[in-house]
């Protein structure tokens, strides 16, 4: 297939995105977000799961969760580029929601090509939420690794670093089987399932590890039998969506800091006068632009140049991760004393970006995998 014109970002995608931007800015301005997730600053508080479920119901009504669900399964069947544009907006407002988790689940289900997966995709189009539960305790970022196994019709073991697990209804669980590995749909509330909240730094997400104490699973819950291959095929899109979220958040960090540079004065000049602040912010802008261009390139490649998908997605995530680290650091530093306080909003984004940076593999990991693609593996 060939490269899409304008990243396949056309009128429909633009309208979807512009509507989303306005909706989110109207409904979740940053002060409201801060009230929602940062009311209790105690670092030893019980792990919280704070999100606006009314807002989420409106989002479901707006159809965002159906964007990449195929039309045959009751979705809108739009492109990944369209979903990326939405994800950039949810990142821009640092939305606490199961949106990304459910999108990731949909991307995996799309690759399963089984009737059970189609059925669950249909449920997602109708509003059901889901997340992936497929990471082992050692934090491996490789699709093949998991600590859950299927023995005698029950799941045993544990999955770690499950995103927004306390906001969703269904878990997509990877399990080692006698034949290899498989994916199962496990509803939250199933017998033997123990979802343990992690206390995490990011205030806009929740994360959990999940114990499977002999959770029985039936044939109808089997989504596919080649979990590693399916997860690997979905990985470029998952990385790209995450990078899109990071670009949106990065743009917020840039614009918020730039605005402060215009109003805050020291030594008789607005801070933006000083090159020690101006030039790093220009560097940040360039990093955001690079990451964003790579995100839309990857998204459009996933839709229309599958042979380039993995390569471009790793570039996007690596670029976004480096950008996010820099954005988070400079937005705090350049706000000075106020930037170090809980009441200043920048910490919400810095924490979300730190979380984003390492999720599904940090920049170093992505570049290592990219080098394997472009240069071949290291000679033994």
């Amino acid at each position, binding site marked *: 297939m060939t490269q899409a014109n304008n990243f396949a970002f056309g009128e429909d995608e633009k309208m979807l995105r512009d509507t989303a931007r306005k909706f989110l800015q109207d409904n979740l301005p940053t002060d409201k977000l801060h009230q929602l997730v940062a009311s209790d*600053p*105690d*670092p*030893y*508080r019980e*792990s919280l799961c704070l999100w606006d479920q009314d807002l989420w119901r409106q989002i479901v009504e707006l159809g965002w969760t159906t964007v990449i669900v195929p039309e045959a399964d009751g979705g809108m069947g739009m492109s990944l580029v369209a979903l990326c544009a939405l994800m950039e907006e949810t990142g821009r407002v640092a939305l606490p929601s199961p949106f990304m988790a459910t999108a990731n689940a949909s991307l995996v289900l799309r690759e399963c090509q089984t009737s059970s997966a189609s059925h669950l995709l249909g449920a997602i189009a109708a509003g059901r939420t889901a997340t992936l539960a497929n*990471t*082992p305790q*050692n*934090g*491996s*970022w*490789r699709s093949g*690794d998991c600590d859950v196994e299927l023995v005698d019709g029950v799941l045993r073991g544990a999955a*770690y*670093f499950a995103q927004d697990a306390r906001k969703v209804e269904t878990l997509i669980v990877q399990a080692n089987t006698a034949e290899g590995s498989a994916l199962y749909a496990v509803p939250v509330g199933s017998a033997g399932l123990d979802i343990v909240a*992690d*206390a*995490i*730094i*990011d205030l806009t997400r929740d*994360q959990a*590890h999940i114990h499977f104490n002999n959770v029985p699973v039936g044939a109808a819950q089997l989504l596919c039998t080649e979990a590693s291959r399916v997860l690997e095929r979905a990985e470029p899109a998952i990385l790209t969506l995450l990078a899109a979220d990071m670009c949106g958040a990065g743009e917020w960090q840039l614009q918020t800091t730039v605005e402060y540079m215009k109003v805050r004065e*020291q*030594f*008789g*000049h607005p801070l933006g006068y*000083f090159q*020690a*602040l101006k030039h790093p912010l220009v560097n940040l802008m360039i990093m955001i632009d690079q990451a964003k261009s790579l995100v839309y390139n990857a998204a459009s490649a996933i839709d229309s140049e599958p042979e380039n998908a993995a390569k471009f997605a790793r570039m996007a995530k690596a670029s976004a991760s480096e950008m996010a*680290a820099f954005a988070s*650091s400079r937005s*705090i*530093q350049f706000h*000075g*004393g106020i*930037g*170090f*306080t*809980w*009441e*200043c909003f920048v*910490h919400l984004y*810095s924490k979300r970006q*730190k*979380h984003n*940076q*390492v*999720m599904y*593999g*940090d920049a*170093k*990991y992505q570049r*290592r995998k990219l080098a394997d693609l472009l240069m071949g593996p290291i000679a033994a």
Partner: protein
Amino acid sequence: MSPQAKKDTSEQAEFRRYCRNWLSQHDAGSPTVRLPQSAIEIMHGEQLDYLRKWQGEAYAAGLIGCDYPVAEGGGGRKNCQLVANQEMARAGKPFLPNILGLGMAAPTLHFHAQSALKERLLPGLFSCEDIWCQGFSEPGAGSDLANVQTFAERRGDKWVINGHKVWTSLAHFADWMILLLRTDKSSKYDGLSYFVVPIKAALGEGVTVRPLIKITGETGFNEVFFDNLEISDDYRLDEVGKGWQVAQTTLLHERGAGPMVTPSSGRGSGSGKTRAVGDAYGLIDLAKHSSRDGQSAADDPLLRDEIMKMIIRQEGSKQGARRAKVEGLCEHPMRIPLQAKLVMSEIRQDSAAVAIDILGAHSSLSIGDDNAPAGGEWPLAYMNSYGITIAAGASEIQRNILGERVLGMAKSK
């Protein structure tokens, strides 16, 4: 014999023996509460009480204020604070809580206060009976410190203070405060004067302390409001209008470049085991015990390289402190001293960032999570590091100072 001991003067050698002996026999005991990463993150009275008791004992034993005159409550020794510091660090004793008093207020009092005042105040500072804080920054005077607007109006031999200070670490516990105030609105630098103020005594009567919360969720610094607080002229340091010059003494010591050595201790919990958080060499241990992408972080060539970069910078900085004392090997006397704060604060920040890379997926876990590697202290240290790169002259200001005072380039503002 330790490397340092080889070079001791006879006074230092004897004092070192004394310290080592005393420290081997005295312990702070196990804390009953989790201790913060440094004094400026003390949140609870319980934390303070534990640390304050330890400082009091160490002072009583002569390990604090060693080089100050006996009349000021000091030990009257010569170059012995360094020895006490080395031995306290070696013994892994808890840190000293009255850090702003020891590091900033004490040298400023010593060099600028009248005898009666410093003889009255320094003993309580050393013993930790009185906690001290520093009132320099204001909402409109951060990097541009000389823009201080909090005003002291003269009324006979009294001054009446009105205004608003911010980022005041330890103010919620403090008995005394060093204060940079405006006494003349017609001149920026020459309109400043320097005072010490008994703020705890004035709480509710002209002084209000409002805690600020840090990005980590910890408390520890505050806003302080002055509403017609009346103080005696006896509390003024140096002449009216000389506040900026006095403040330079404070700042020089704050940045680790002043002549008086600040008493400091191990960062340990009292058990004799120094916590490695924030120290670049500690990254090796973290890597060896961390699983990143499912593998030992210590075997990742890129992380090994990052760790070595940090260790080299930290060692360079440590050896710099050593070289600063060898006049023949320095191009400019203030070149290394004025780098100290900038360099160490950025090394700590960058080291903590490397730790986050090492931790991989596990870096998402906070100090509140039982499964967080190394108790979640490294990501916490990363966040807290911004306190240091912002406070006491942000890194950008430090670079201006170095470019202008040391390299002689044109002033940027």
